């Protein structure tokens, strides 16, 4: 099961094989948790939201088209679930880097690594000022490395609008970084 492809796991899941779906969860939960975190703007509720999204994905897997990649389809479900959770939840947190969470900087940390940490914190602070839609498209493009078509699928938009949306998100990110 651990070496099965996504398509095989999906086919078995469609036939009602819970173990196969569990293997899909295991393979993709980290990526899904990241999408939930980015959409929510905080890690706090990401596990609950991601769990709910996987359960929804199981219910909808009968209509998954096996010639597509699983992650864009899954990410769409995760992002929609997180979006709905944002609407109903009063809680607002912030994205945090691992270095900031530890709240110490090792004295022996090489200079370039320390600079990279500072850059990341500055960038994450800027990301925290953006809308979740902007954070999502930036994540899909520069972290999840989805293609334009896959981003369109994940965002339920036309392929032609992905470039303009991405361009606007990048502009807003640059402005936010300048204001830091």
């Amino acid at each position, binding site marked *: 099961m651990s070496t099965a492809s996504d398509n095989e796991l999906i086919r078995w899941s469609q036939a009602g094989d819970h173990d196969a*779906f569990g293997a899909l*969860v295991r393979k993709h939960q980290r990526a899904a948790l990241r999408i939930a*975190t980015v959409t929510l703007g905080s890690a706090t509720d990401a596990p609950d939201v991601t*769990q709910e999204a996987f359960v929804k994905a199981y219910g*909808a897997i009968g209509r998954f088209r096996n010639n597509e990649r699983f992650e864009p389809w899954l990410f769409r479900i995760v992002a929609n679930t997180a979006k709905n959770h944002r609407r109903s939840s009063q809680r607002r947190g912030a994205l945090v880097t691992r270095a900031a969470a530890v709240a110490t900087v090792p004295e022996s940390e090489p200079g370039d690594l320390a600079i990279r940490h500072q850059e990341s914190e500055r960038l994450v602070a800027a990301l925290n000022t953006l809308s979740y839609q902007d954070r999502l498209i930036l994540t899909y493009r520069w972290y999840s490395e989805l293609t334009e078509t896959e981003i369109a699928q994940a965002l339920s938009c036309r392929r032609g609008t992905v470039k303009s949306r991405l361009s606007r998100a990048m502009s807003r990110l640059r402005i936010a970084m300048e204001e830091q």
Partner: protein
Amino acid sequence: MTRLETQIHQALESLVVPDTDLVESVLAELPLHRSPVRHRRPVLATAVAVLAIAIGIVAAVAPAREAIADWLGIGATELQSVNEVDLPDRSSVEDLGDPVASTTLRETQPEDTRASVSPIPSLGEPSGVFDDSSRGRSYTWSASANLPAIGSSDVGAVLSVRPADRVLSAKVIANDVEFGPVELASLSGDTIAFWINGQHVLVQTGSSRRVSANQVLLWVADGVEIRLETSLELPEVVRLAQEIVEGTELLAPG
């Protein structure tokens, strides 16, 4: 990658993301759900066969016609099946009501959805929005290469929404027009919609307004009747409809 793009990647990599293993908790919830196995038989063919038998038995009896409408569950619309139908010259696209200003539409959306005010994201923003006391709120999209025109109009799609709590109109369908239930799978569960695969007549209850309508997909979600009219074939219409099923909170019934 540019330097900024690399920095974005590194920043997203550095985010605190929960390290939770969700497998057990997800699997624990699965037995409560229906099997995800797709129906392999076309739902429409089976449903139409059943419907044809039902209509054959009860067509002439008015109370039974209501029973068919209830059985089919199509909200504010009654279905009438007749041998032949005279299609009016006036099209349903010309009978949508009063135009609504786009700024008004934008103001009715929740703040974090104003970036996209389209009920069908893949079609983009509607070219027109209309309100009518009987037809409810209607959104139109212009015809294009991927969205063939409805009849001789320049409209490619009409989405109408209204409360489903009372009968407001009837669809009069000739016997040679195929219609029946279609399953819309959504993230919140399955919905049964009704597909009318051809031209038919739309009559507003209590008025003389009769217009011709094209292919229509009709369903009820959260007490709202949703009607999608296009010139597209069923698979493409279902794809559009499933975008709406998953985002009905964007709709503001007229």
